[in-house]
């Protein structure tokens, strides 16, 4: 069953465009209320205006790396699942699907978010940036370049998430202290344990961005 989700838009108090669907409404419906602790700030503040079943299919538009994608999704699908398995944007990695490791970190309206804890329908009307979106054509972005130079990874699987966390940090804090860097990537696990190199790469990235 396909159902067109109402795309009524309204500006919230932060000036961000919002759809009529809220995280809380979906979480209530799919019985995943316990996951609400990971809800993004500014989301879930309003009651649901639409009621859908989790397996219902809906059409939506997602704005990813500056391109609009029109998609048919089940309302329960995570943004992570849609990015990886439906759009082939596998730069965003899957590590736990429960908001623990940060391998799936993407920017939503410039802020780092776990894509595994974000439903695709929640991301409608927002600007989503993935690792692929940091590239300038085939050229690496400054944070990517800094990770390369400082060997800030081993297996490379947590790396996209680490890079997005650092990118998010530098967008809000262009000259971070070591402590700010540590906190910014503290939600991104690296089992190879290369944190010390990640700290150096973040400092280098801050320089590269200013150059």
């Amino acid at each position, binding site marked *: 069953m396909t159902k067109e989700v109402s795309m009524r838009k309204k500006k919230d108090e932060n000036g961000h465009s919002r759809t009529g669907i809220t995280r809380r409404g979906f979480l209530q419906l799919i019985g995943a209320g316990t996951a609400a602790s990971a809800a993004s700030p500014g989301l879930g503040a309003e009651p649901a205006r639409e009621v859908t079943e989790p397996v219902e299919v809906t059409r939506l538009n997602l704005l990813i790396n500056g391109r609009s994608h029109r998609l048919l999704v089940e309302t329960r699908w995570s943004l992570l*699942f849609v990015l990886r398995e439906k759009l082939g944007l596998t*730069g965003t*990695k899957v590590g736990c699907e*429960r908001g623990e490791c940060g*391998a799936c970190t993407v920017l939503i309206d410039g802020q780092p978010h776990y894509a595994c804890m974000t439903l695709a329908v929640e991301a409608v009307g927002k600007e989503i940036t993935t690792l692929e979106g940091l590239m300038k054509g085939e050229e690496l972005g400054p944070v990517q370049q800094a990770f390369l130079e400082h060997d800030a990874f081993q*297996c490379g699987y947590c790396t996209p998430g680490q890079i997005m966390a650092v990118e998010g940090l530098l967008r809000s804090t262009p000259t971070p202290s070591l402590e700010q860097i*540590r906190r910014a*990537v503290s939600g991104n696990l690296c089992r190879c344990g*290369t944190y010390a190199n990640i700290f150096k790469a973040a400092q280098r990235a801050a320089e590269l961005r200013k150059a």
Partner: protein
Amino acid sequence: MREERETPKPWKKTEVIGKPMPRVDAYERVSGSAIYPSDTSLPDMLYGAILRCPHAHAKVLDIDAREAEKMPGVRAVIKGDTNGASVEWPYLRGFKTKLFDLYCRHEGEEVAAVAAETPYQAWDAVKAIKVKYEILPFVVDERKALESGTPAIHAGGNRSGEPQTYERGNVEKGFGEADVVLEETYRTESELHTPMELHGCVARWDGDQLTVWESTQGVYAVQARVAEVLGLPLANVRVIGSYMGGGFGSKLQAGKYTIIAALLSKKTARPVKVFLTREETFLCVGNRPPSNMTLKAGVRRDGTLTALEFGCIGTGGAYPAGGTSSVDWLVRDLYQCPNVRTKLTDVYINAGPSRPCRAPGHPQGAWALEQMIDALAEAIKMDPVELRLKNIPLYSQAREGNPPYTSTGLKECLKEGAEAFGWNEALKKASEANARGGPLRRGVGMASGLWIAGGGGPPSTILIKLFSDGSLNLNMGASDIGTGTKTVMAMVVCEELGVPMRKIQIEHADTRTTQYATPSGGSKTVPTEGPAVRAAALHVKQQLLEMAGRELKTEADQLDLKNGEIVSTIDPTKKIKIANLSELKRQGVILGVGYRGPNPDKKVVNPFGAQFCEVEVNIQTGEVKVLRFLAAQESGRVMNRLTYDNQVVGGITWGVGLALTEARILDAQQTGKMVNRNWHDYKIPTALDVPAEVISLPIEPEDTEANTTGAKGLGEPVTIPTAAAIANAVYNAIGIRITRTPINPLTLCPLLARRRKEG
């Protein structure tokens, strides 16, 4: 047949080897263009999910999958009685169970599996399968597994093989000669590998040929297991690894999930992707076994060790899986000691089988031995560095015939490490700071180690294809598990042939297209593959010089290869660019083949190391902060300084995890289930738990015997002494010896409180 070739001489001066080089695949890894097995997506692909036993010990009485089979998107349900699924799964010592066994001996054992159009639908169907279990009594504490009245996991009881014993000299006599004899019990908790990329694969059949894209440390090992279990010719099983997101020993082999993906794919005639959930990886794909250790040690006032007696009870879980592997090795071989006795007892419990975990047995053994050495030093009022220096081994005492090491830098690791760390000043400063009182106490500690392997060896075959424009392909079966193998191998080629790194393209980890290789584990990949790559490069060079000799009408041995040109050593005007060789243009390529030669006879190739750290302990909250670390590692020649230092950083993070944060917790009282099967409750070190200052101090003795590169392994040695060094530093800070991992507020606060009470 291999023609005889001269063994190349050790490098004297190197152009590329040893320099810090960014990885050849760094661009792919940071841009998102590296396709990991879990990123694989094939047309018409289905998703698999596995139904697992929720009990610690149970017998499956009935499985009703009728409802699940009818659910939307479901294309196949398989269980033990499904046609083709009644295959056997092997453990160590020839022990086998069914893939879907009716007896589930640990929580998470595989009961059935589903393939559906989306993973969401597959999990819906898994939840709809109704299973009747007979719940059986369980045991999940290995210390109780042999007590009478404990439920037996296998018909023969809970002993996993006979206890392993080792003895040299006369331990009783040794203790009699000691001035001080100490005895202590130690315990390290079970750790879970949890690499960032989940375990799993994509499987696809083309007629009777099976292709598997698997996140693995060794494609040939996966191929062998899949062929064995499914009864297929090796040639019909292709395993592709390429990138992989971490393994640490848990991905040396195929998993049951590999077989399940293949069976689901067969049944549906479509490709199937099976990647486990994070929770499943905590239950079913390996662990570092818990170790319960006793150590009695004797020392004379002059620092001579007279006797060591060690015992360990461990468990590989519910099946034979090496629950006590190598736990006693350091006691046997790290220090000079004439009288040593060890006993290892491996038992079964109702928990997931262990798998090799970064330096199997060694960090546990170091936790006991290196804390004991520290305690002995204090007892005889000797500096702990000094006591270790008094007992440096000259040869491997634990091996038959006492073979010497090709190189042992343990002495230099201790001396140069202590100096670079500022050991004496740091000790003094910590003691002065603590004398001033206050809640924050400083401590410094150190420990050393060696790794039982790390020398590599045959077999390995490498192909190098030099094209007529001077660019080349390197073909290698081994996986790069994140240690930088590909980059090191490109550097070896660059060193010998002068071909710039950007003109070297590497094909690897594919059983169909690359050469046979053993799995990347045991810290042996560089010393195994490096010499074979060097031999292949030299084979190319020899053919190139012969070709140029014909073209320049001169002898090949009067020619040399420099910057892409072949130049006469006698008349430098006589030269030709690789790209201008007309014979090469006609021939298309030069193919170089390299093999890994044998290791030196009656010699041992082992890496050594010593580590030093400084900690801060809050005696009010029980928090431990690791402030700085220095690792002096002797792993022979440094191949790539950048990736070398990175291994050091990572190994120390792992040691911080063992010492301070990680412990598998099983509910021994009520359910037998694991209670912290996720990264919220099972804590691996985060960016806030590790020292920002990690100093890597390579100790590089010239090792001309180990292999033709002079390199030994590093990845495992560098995490062996770490946890013990932290424990010693905590003791130095607060005067309480913590013999059980993890040292955290939960374990530390009661000890601090007791001491306050006792004054």
